């Protein structure tokens, strides 16, 4: 692994209910990179993400900047790994600002009405970055799906963690919001974070990712730039699709076209 690698996983294995869902995954990602984690349904993408975030018991090692994350207290780990689960549910009609402020929970700010200066500033930065300032005082349950997902992103960004793990952040969003969300995650990466995004959209993965991690049946079978990791052979073998390929503005264009 190179010196630039910041997030390193070594021999990661996850078993759920006696079934091995992640097999011996090793990866190394530098800061500033956005990686797309792709794979067919049931490949173990969410489990891998959870294992990196320390949300499921896993074997193997996760290292961050050379430090072993094993045995780290939950709150310590939560400061380093911002995690966005699927669905973006909020069960109470709380104002957007209070939801975003939950991103400061790992930093000890457990009450959104009593944030310190640093926490308040982080919340404001996150709300500006995700463009939710306009409805900061509205109850989150009154927002549209696109607005809610931006609030969820703002909540995750407010953690200001060096690692950002987002599980299907663009599922069920219209194209405009899909591009907006991924552009925001790309900016977060450029600002110095390691960003891993789980997605089923190979086109968006090719457009925005610096690296594409391909997971199949719990094994990492591809880890490369989009043009290679999503080349004709892996697409046919892993995803069982053929694709239309081209290029636009210097980025690969991949449109899944036919079932193999």
């Amino acid at each position: 692994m190179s010196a630039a690698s910041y997030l390193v996983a070594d021999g990661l294995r996850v078993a759920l209910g006696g079934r091995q869902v992640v097999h011996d995954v090793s990866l190394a990602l530098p800061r500033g990179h956005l990686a797309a984690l792709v794979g067919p349904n049931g490949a173990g993408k969410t489990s891998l993400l959870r294992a990196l975030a320390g949300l499921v018991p896993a074997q193997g090692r996760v290292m961050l900047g050379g430090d072993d994350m094993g045995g780290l207290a939950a709150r310590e780990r939560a400061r380093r790994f911002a995690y966005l689960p699927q669905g973006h549910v909020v069960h109470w009609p709380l104002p957007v600002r209070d939801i975003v402020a939950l991103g400061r929970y790992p930093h000890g700010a457990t009450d959104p009405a009593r944030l310190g200066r640093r926490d308040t500033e982080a919340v404001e930065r996150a709300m500006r970055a995700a463009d939710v300032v306009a409805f900061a005082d509205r109850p989150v349950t009154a927002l549209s799906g696109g607005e809610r997902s931006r609030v969820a992103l703002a909540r995750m960004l407010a953690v200001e963690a060096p690692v950002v793990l987002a599980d299907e952040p663009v599922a069920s969003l219209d194209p405009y919001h899909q591009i907006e969300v991924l552009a925001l995650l790309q900016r977060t990466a450029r600002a110095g974070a390691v960003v891993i995004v789980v997605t089923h959209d190979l086109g968006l993965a090719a457009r925005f990712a610096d690296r594409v991690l391909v997971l199949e049946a719990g094994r990492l079978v591809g880890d490369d730039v989009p043009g290679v990791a999503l080349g004709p052979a892996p697409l046919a073998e892993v995803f069982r699709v053929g694709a239309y390929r081209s290029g636009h503005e210097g980025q690969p264009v991949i449109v899944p076209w036919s079932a193999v």
Partner: protein
Amino acid sequence: MDGTDAATTAGTTGVRLRVLERLPVLLLGSLVVLLLLLSLGIGPVRVSPGAVLAALAGGGTEETRIIVQEIRLPRAILAAAVGASLGLSGAALQGLLRNPLAAPELFGAPQAAALGAVLVIATGLADVLSFVLPIAAIAAAFVSVFALLVVAGRNASLLLLILSGLALSSLAGAGTALTMNLAPNPFAALEISFWLLGSLEDRSLRHVMLALPFIVAGAAVLASQRHAFRPLGLGEEAAASLGVDVARTRLLVILGVALGVGGSVAVSGTIGFIGLIGPHLVRPLVGYDPARLMLPSALGGAALLLSADIAVRLLPATTSVRVGVLTALIGVPFFLWLILRERRALGGGLG
């Protein structure tokens, strides 16, 4: 400079929130004090609020002192403490399960606590060691809420929780009926059945001392977990990713509810629906914040049970109506109305 501006704006919001946050607590607190005074004045002998205060301070006639301090004060304290405990338990369960229809009485906790207590009464153990009564009630309540969450599973829908709660409370009820059925002494069975209806009549300082330590301990445990309820509102996974120890919170909430409900049931019998109605009435006052809901829910629960206990003393009936019967009479229609309102969410639990 942008950041400073933003910080100032948010700072003002914080101050505004702090004032708004105190207001419901102040209002509800005053209401509880008022109802306490009223409760001390009402009964066969009416005592004016002024005379109540004088008697509490050790003044007035000896007769009013005895009535206020020895007969009515334990009853009023228990009404406030039991009501507060039920309100707090409801708010905590709602926060833990992220659902406004969660309540100890819908999950069979009081019914299980009653079974625990009845077993102890029937075996005569309670006469020998009075502290066994609340401990048995607490243990039974703990087992039932724990079993409920195990049976319903993680991220259970409300429908699953209520079905499991129904099953558990039916089981506890059957166990209680069996105990009474097998009771050697018909008077003991009669005594148990009246006790089960839930009442605060003729309670002494001894009852207060028996229940209060457990109720206070339960409240402290629940209050310590309140900040976890906000992140839990994003779902268990998101909460865990923010550093909440979800399993620990769940266990402590079950323990807190068991301590509060068990301690209450041990001295008052089963008094239902305060834990459902209390939090519901005060929720809009705190902006639906599950952590800020806790203290107002306790005060709301105390005010509700004090009012109900005053009402049963005002009802013109030859036999006194049990307060547990009254809260159920008010609570069940309220519950039905809540179901009607939350119908879509409940139907969603099916899918």
